[in-house]
């Protein structure tokens, strides 16, 4: 059933009894053309675009738990395309364009809300770096504005600390098209749309090995629900990537790290868009429900534990208070942790591998949510055509060996600094 005001009205009159499952709870078939391992946003988007853009509909998405149970459901929901480097900005701007048409495309309201992303700067050097970035964004067709202190003050006259700050706000980089989306709804929207195109979404089906032919090519997966064969296998399992690739004797340029995120109790509207602090690790937005959704830096040590420790919680709260001294009495309601594939240069990998039939989507660090549409789109292209699209052409696995690293922050091969 197509979702619309009309279908909503009709169902209201019949006691909501007309709704059908948003996607079929499929049982796995013995074989598929393509198997996508991982039922998060990236995996589901990949399956959707495989079916929609490339006509490959004999596709299964295998999810070990429930769809969206990994980082797709554990992020701070920010979407933006304010990147600097040529390897990144065209990709993220493409993602932004897909976000802008997503809801109509998949017929699901993912609450894509372009209320602006404001990155604050606190020094002349930071402002110059933002100018460079803002220009790079314009060159790539994205929108960007450089604000001075008055410009920031006009956006948030009462909230931010302009008078007693340790690191005074000098201005900011504003991307008005940036904003947030409802993370779970993105997952459900892609799942429902992919399902409609014939994709099998198989939950509670954990992949624990690969089937390989005599030449070494990957021709299927071993799962908790039995072996399933496939022409091609694509991996989109942030937080579990190394656990699976080690079964193929692949070592990757990633480390798994825990990132905590937080939500406050619900409040009447306080923060319109997304704000990021430039003198500490802190970013915040307010959900439509009223909770402040915020986060900071990763805990900083290898972890698969999906939970973090107090020092980062304190660091985040300190930055929050330094930036917005009126929120001291607002309470943190809940915290959670997700496992990030932190890559060695802070940039993801969407590529085929040296193993025929095996494709890799990993290394999203803590920026994977905003990339969901373009990641799925580019990964689908790469799998379907066996070659990268121009938009992910630089997100190669061999860039570390050739030296074509894409290091936005310039901090080098240390994952916990990206």
């Amino acid at each position: 059933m197509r979702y619309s005001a009309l279908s909503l009205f009709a169902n209201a009159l019949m006691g909501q009894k007309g709704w059908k499952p948003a996607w079929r709870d499929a049982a796995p078939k013995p074989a598929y053309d393509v198997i996508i391992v991982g039922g998060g946003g990236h995996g589901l988007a990949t399956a959707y675009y495989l079916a929609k853009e490339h006509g490959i509909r004999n596709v299964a998405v295998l999810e070990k738990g429930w769809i969206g149970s990994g980082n797709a459901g554990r992020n701070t929901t920010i979407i933006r395309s304010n990147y600097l480097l040529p390897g990144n900005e065209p990709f993220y701007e493409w993602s932004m364009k897909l976000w802008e048409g997503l809801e109509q495309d998949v017929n699901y309201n993912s609450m894509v809300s372009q209320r602006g992303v404001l990155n604050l700067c606190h020094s002349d050097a930071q402002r110059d770096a933002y100018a460079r970035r803002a220009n790079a964004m314009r060159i790539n067709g994205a929108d960007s504005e450089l604000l001075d202190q008055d410009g920031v003050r006009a956006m948030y006259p009462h909230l931010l600390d302009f008078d007693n700050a340790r690191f005074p706000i000098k201005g900011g980089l504003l991307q008005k098209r940036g904003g947030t989306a409802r993370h779970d709804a993105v997952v459900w929207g892609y799942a429902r749309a992919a399902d409609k195109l014939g994709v099998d979404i198989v939950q509670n089906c954990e992949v624990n090995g690969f089937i390989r032919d005599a030449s070494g090519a990957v021709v299927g997966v071993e799962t908790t629900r039995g072996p399933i064969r496939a022409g091609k296998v694509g991996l989109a399992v942030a937080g579990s990537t190394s656990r699976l690739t080690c079964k193929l004797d692949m070592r990757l340029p990633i480390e798994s790290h825990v990132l905590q995120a937080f939500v406050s109790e619900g409040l009447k509207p306080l923060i319109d868009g997304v704000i990021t602090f430039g003198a500490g690790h802190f970013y915040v937005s307010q959900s439509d429900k009223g909770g402040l959704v915020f986060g900071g830096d990763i805990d900083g040590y290898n972890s698969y534990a999906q939970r973090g420790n107090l020092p980062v919680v304190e660091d985040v709260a300190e930055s929050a208070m330094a930036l917005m001294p009126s929120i001291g009495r607002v309470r943190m309601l809940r915290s959670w942790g997700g496992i990030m594939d932190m890559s060695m240069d802070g940039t993801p990998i969407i590529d085929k591998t040296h193993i025929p039939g095996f494709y890799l989507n990993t290394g999203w660090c803590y920026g994977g949510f905003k990339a969901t549409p373009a990641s799925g789109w580019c990964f689908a292209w790469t799998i379907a055509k066996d070659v990268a699209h121009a938009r992910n052409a630089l997100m190669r696995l061999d860039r570390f060996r050739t030296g074509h690293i894409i290091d936005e922050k310039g901090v080098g091969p240390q994952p916990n600094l990206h």
Partner: protein
Amino acid sequence: MSRLPSGGRIDRSQPLSFSFDGKAYKGFAGDTLASALLANGVRLVGRSFKYHRARGIFSAGSEEPNALVELRTGARREPNTRATTVELFDGLSAQSQNRWPSLDFDVMSVNGLLSPFLGAGFYYKTFMWPAAFWEKLYEPIIRRAAGLGRAAEGTDPDSYEKAYAFCDVLVIGGGAAGLTAALSAARSGARVIIADEDFALGGRLLSEQHPIDGAPATSFVAKVEAELASLPNVRIMSRTTVFGVYDSGDYGALEKVSDHLAVPAPFQPRQRMWKINAKQAVLASGAFDRPIVFGGNDRPGVMSAQALRTYAVRYGVAPGNSAVLFANNDYAWSAALDAAEAGVRLTTIVDVRTEVAPALTARAKALGTRVILGGEVVATSGKVLTSVIVRSGGREETISTEVLAISGGTTPNLHLTSHFGSKPLYNKELAAFLPNTPPPGMAVAGAAGGHFSLAATLRTGAELGAAAATAAGFNATPVAAQAEETPSGISAFWQVKGARGKAFVDFQNDVTNKDVTVAHREGYRSVELLKRYTTLGMATDQGKNSNMAGLAIMAELTGQGIGETGTTLFRPPYTPVALGAIAGHHRGKDFRPTRPTPSHAWAKERGAMFVEAGQWLRAQYFPKPGEKDWLETVIREVKATRASVGMIDVSTFGKIDLKGPDAGAFLDRVYINMFSTLAVGKARYGVMLREDGIVMDDGTTSRLSPEHYVMTTTTANAAKVYQHLEFCLQVLWPELDVQLASITEQWAQISISGPKSREVLAKVVDAPIDVSNEALPYMGVAQGTVMGGVKTRIFRLSFAGELGYEIAVPARHGEKLVRALMAAGEPFNITPYGTEALAVMRVEKGHVSGSELNGHTSARDLGLGKMASTKKDFLGRVLSGRPAFLEEDRPILAGFRPVDKTKRIRAGAHFMAIGAEPVLENDEGYMTAAIFSPTVDSWIGLGLIKRGTERWGEKVRAYDPVRGEDIEVEICDPAFVDPKGERLRV
């Protein structure tokens, strides 16, 4: 008034005044805001999130879903404060929230009528057309309507603290189990901390009427508390909530130091966050009643059975003139009957069971309470409750009542046990989830562990308290405390079928049983999907009240058992924690430490403007009266320096002392150029790489003696380089015999530059230091004393590109040196300058700095490739040989000047061929720095551009759309001033 004529643990001799929604009321010391409101007959307290339903007070604890208020006003306003946890104080002011125009008449309650359209997930199915309307129309309406209370207006005027504590045994909860646990551990000599969120110890014992060891429970509490207080190894922390469990036995706790006062006492914080490290912990957090799902179960006047008892027994309040109990378990009977014995008029008990322990029915009979077995409440009525409809034996009857006490069973308060990801296990017999594997070192006692009866609570507390102390290395035995076993029957029951009106599962988020059904129908069947689709369990109670019924209804729909359906995980914090408390004093100017330079006081005296450089505060420029802007000042400072002499404090540069026979060999490995060959008494500029071939830092290193070097780093990288060197020595090459020490703080370093700097220096040095060009040539180092005996190291070098010296003295003499140099330089018009003039002079000279050492550039990119020694290996050498590093098109450092000399160029502009379309393919690099050069008399810049060194003289665009500029610039030698370095050597 609903205050009972006597009883309660309130102090009737201490009346307190307070207001709610502007109306004045009276309560007593010992009340909570909730008990005081009920005592004044105030039953409508809040509005729900979505349908704006009228809501009252459901619980008597921190799990309260309904009675959320805005406490205090203005900059102290605390939204979403549970009235049930607010200790009453004189002058308290609270307002209802999420209603307009008033609590009594809330326009948004019309949403309730629209509920057929506003069911679970309605917003995912609509508001999509046209696309632009989401941000402009639909979302603003949703945002305004959503949310609960309003945040404070203005900077939080109160302060917060953090504190550490260490103990052998942490007891979480001061109720029956917590008290016996703490006492059992404490008597062994173990260091014990007992923390309770309440302002009084005792937990359920403050409300129950059962005797312990033959005496009233309250005297047991008093006795144990007195003994604990007398022991030096025990710390009692009331008003303290343990909110999170972290690794290695770390616990986060929030102490509400002043929340029971109108304003904090002088020098006292509002709240204090504790980080408690405990070898062992006993969780004794009790249990609470969960609701039953039936039509109108949310109406003000509906409250948990335990809460009814607490209000009656502990606070001496009858929450209404009559009460009905609807339950499925014996504990609820005990609670309601206790309340009745305290003075509540309990007219009727409705139980879904057909058989109940005779002891309980006998008690009811004695009180004159009617008992309806095999009955259900199917509906309620009244804006605040006036009556309930009870169905039994196929018949319905209406019973008038102001209070409906409900209990669907006892839910262990096991929040903290799942902070490490352990999913609770379902126990069919108790119809409850019990802790699975608590975090290491934690044991769960009493009701939190499913030991609901008072006798079991006391016993398990004592046993686990003793066991914890024993595990921590003490010899402990459980204390004895006896209580009678009480009836404990329960029959699992979650919702009344065929109920009329909305039947709520999650009160605060307005999730009904129909919403759960819709979620099931649409395939959102995993408990996590159910939660996310319906928002069940996402309210401020984290689902403490709602999870059980919600997943039980889902289990029924899927046909799986409750255990297989499972439950969602509780995440820290246990109850919401104020951000101010977690931040502590790290706010405003104290957000991060401020490091003043040795000359800070002097610079302040001179009227310097300061700038943040990491944690440092450095002089930015020294304005003189009459100068119209910073640029005029900076131009004066630069001109004076180049013409005569200028001075700047460079103490912020990192300084590292290296000693040992292998120091030279070590430096050869970390720098791209040679240092083992450096002569004693000489300095050399060095560049070090990361292992990936990118430049990490630059600076000068001097050799003071054959086995003693001193290195300088950039200000920004001081700590990073020091850590890197220790890494190289301890991890990569432990065979090298070198010792490092950071001496950044120990030495003040003042730089003087300009043609007259030698004459100034000559006036401050002591014999035998000879500052002549022969004795102290460019890149020479002298050691001795200045100012009549102050130890010094003098380095002849200059970042500004002039004859110059950096004079280091012990930090405590830094300010004295600055004043001495100023005095010595007076005849030469010595001019102090700051970071701005320094930035100008370094760009004029073509020296790289932070904006070029940006983590993207190799030595070759910066024009420093020739420095790399080919005679040795060095860190980063191998990977700087990767193909990408050798590409011809890599951006290389160059100078830039505007073709039209009047134009201002800016850092951040991108370079493109003239006439080229501004697209990615045509992007050739960018401007890293741009300044106005008084020496060149125009704006000039440094930048990275493809094949930079080969293109001097070529013109390109500096494209800067974000600032609306597009300026033609000429590529040139980055050294605008003295490219041959002659001025340095005079």
